């Protein structure tokens, strides 16, 4: 009995964490390069919709997944353009992306699907396939985490990206165009957030609807901070958030829930606040976050 419960909790944790992991990884790359991005929610939403759309139109979930990532990346281009080229306030620009992403998603949905705000459900064969009980996106998320860790700490691109986020003048004085790396960071956050949205709309559930993405982008943002702006840290933080979500489901299915599901849902956020207060200081954020030169 207990083993079954644990397996259930473990696998639902992974399932819920996966979308968060993608988006959080995107947040990490972007912020590590020195650009604030609070528009992850909008990017995720847009990616979720576009993935659905493309999966339905092409009848291919992998194209859907890729499409979700690419289109969200296209949306993030505007954040990069306005923040880096036009020197807009990065928080304002991020908020704009949230409105744009959300709006575009439902707008296009209605256009393509006869006025409804939900995409038609995908048949089982057209969703992302599973392997050993988990969607392939789960394995992709784990792979992405490992890949990004290697990227940051073993390649010269990663070294330069991190440097630009810490001290753009120093990077510039070593002859590197630091804006290029920031733009890369922003576009990557778009792509990964799109993958995150897709991993919800064409894997975990089978369609896109307006309430599909309701705050996960912001949860991912706090996972970035919670994980001290590292890929592995964000990964663990997302697992934590996924765990609480799966506990909500598990305990909700019980006869007499021990803790109200509402209280349980609060825990990750209260915990994050405590971590912020007592363990953070400002020492973990990239030193030159939001400075563009």
């Amino acid at each position, binding site marked *: 009995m207990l083993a079954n419960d644990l397996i259930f909790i473990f696998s639902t944790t992974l399932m819920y964490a996966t979308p968060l992991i993608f988006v959080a990884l995107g947040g990490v790359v972007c912020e590590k390069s020195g650009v604030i991005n609070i528009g992850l929610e909008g990017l995720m939403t847009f990616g979720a919709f576009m993935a659905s759309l493309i999966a339905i139109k092409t009848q291919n979930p992998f194209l859907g997944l890729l499409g979700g990532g690419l289109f969200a990346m296209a949306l993030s281009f505007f954040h990069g353009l306005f923040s880096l080229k036009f020197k807009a306030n990065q928080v304002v620009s991020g908020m704009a992306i949230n409105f744009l992403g959300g709006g575009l998603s439902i707008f296009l949905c209605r256009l393509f699907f006869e006025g409804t705000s939900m995409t038609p459900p995908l048949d089982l064969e057209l969703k992302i396939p599973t392997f050993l009980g988990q969607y392939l996106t789960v394995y992709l998320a784990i792979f992405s985490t490992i890949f990004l860790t290697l990227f940051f700490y*073993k*390649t*010269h691109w990663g*070294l*330069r990206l*991190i*440097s630009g986020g*810490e*001290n753009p*003048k*120093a*990077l510039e*004085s*070593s*002859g*590197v165009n630091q804006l290029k790396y920031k733009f890369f960071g922003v576009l990557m956050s778009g792509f990964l957030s799109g993958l995150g949205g897709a991993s919800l709309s064409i894997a975990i559930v089978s369609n896109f609807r307006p309430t599909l993405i309701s705050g996960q982008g912001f949860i991912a943002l706090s996972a970035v901070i919670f994980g001290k702006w590292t890929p592995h840290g964000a990964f663990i933080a997302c697992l934590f958030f996924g765990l609480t979500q799966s506990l909500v489901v598990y305990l909700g299915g019980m006869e007499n829930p021990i803790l109200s599901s509402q209280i349980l849902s609060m825990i990750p956020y209260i915990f994050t606040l405590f971590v912020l207060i007592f363990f953070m200081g400002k020492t973990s954020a990239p*030193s030159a976050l939001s400075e563009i030169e």
Partner: protein
Amino acid sequence: MSFLELQNINKTFNGVKANSQINLKIEKGEIHALLGENGAGKSTLMKMIFGLYKPDAGGKIIFKGSELKNHSPSKASKLGIGMVHQHFMLINPLTVLENIILGIEPKKWFFFIDIESARNKIKKIIDTYHFNIDIDSRIDQISVGMGQRVEIIKTLYRDAELIILDEPTAVLTPLEIEDFYKIVLNLKREGKTILIITHKLHEIKKLADRCSIIRKGEYITTVDVAKTSEEELATLMVGRNVSLKLKLPPKDFGDYFFSIEKASALNNKNLLALNELNLKMKRGEIYGIAGVDGNGQNELVEGLIGLRHFFNGKILLNGKDITHFSPLEKYAEKISLIPSDRKKWGLVLDYNIEENLFLRNIDDAPFSHKGIIYFEALRTKAVELIKRFDIRPNDSKAEVKGLSGGNQQKVIIAREVMNEPELLIMFQPTRGLDVGAIEYVYSELLNLRAQNKSILLISYDLDEVIKLSDRIGVIFEGKIIKEFKRAEIDQDLLIKEKIGLSMAGSMN
């Protein structure tokens, strides 16, 4: 053919001439010092050699026989010019090794950094020059002295032949300085050419073969260090034009009313900035603190105004211990400050003249009552102050952002003087001001002195300090090491040289 040659170098920033007709020749393999006071134009010159700035038309920089055209830092690097900036260009969370290779990382299998080959190359450098450094430690865990070594290794890793050092020992402890000298001599031994910017005379004597002096943007001369004494160097640095257009009227001073006793404080890097500093002031005098930037002036001012903690020592005003008073409390005790950076500390640029004038005392009558602002009262007083201090434009609602530097400074002076201070601290009061504004500030200073107000004047411009002070204290490494009285200043023709020596640390 010289290794590096500068011909007719001029550089103008916004109408201000930083470098004027500089001609310089550096020979291969020598250690060449560049000596000059703050603002003399040394850094600007070096930055042009390194490609960060471009010289005005007509100027040429010739390195190893070829002219440097379309110069940039990465070009400079490739050609073999390296620069160690005064403010390090280091990435804190990365290791020493990572910082060294940033920008020219060796690669393995296209994707990965070839740590091994980097490590080997760096090890060779460390062994050759006897650096004592752990290249796997993080930058935020190493000392400032180590950080500087990293900067030097960066230049050597890029195979620099000419290494420029900008005020390298400004941030080092005495022990680290000794190590640094060894390193520099090692570099010379290995055939490197060194250009070192410094204002420390004993350092020049210790390291340099030749020394060129820059004064107020102009090249004065180049001397053979072995044949030149420190006194001679000091003379060349400060020049002989002590203009005594202003004469301080003689005056009887009151008692000592303000004293700083053994004040100690740390700077932002947790290094000792004030080292048991002692200072006493008489009522009605202008006490000038002379010294080169970085000897504790910032920390002293911040401490006096209540924004930095004195971990030791006492500040007494009329016998009252005000050491740990807050800025508001100090203001109530009638201490006022004209800060050195008026845009950052002195003014709210988005506010207008009125609002800035009453930034400190908005809570006092008649400007407000129970929290409601009386704008008429503000305007009336503002008009009065604008007239008295001749602030232009004479519109009290004009945004301070649009005022000239001189007028901005007037607003601050008006505000601080309004408080009828017992002690007015003026930190770099004429920084960035044109001649007219400077004259104005000086006359205001003398007015206050005539009204028996006491002024603590801290400035990096020695001429200014000499002109205005009843007494001068020279600050060096966090202490007042020598005082000069007015009588002495007026009578001694060589006073500027003497003060210059003290500023450079000479204890004679």
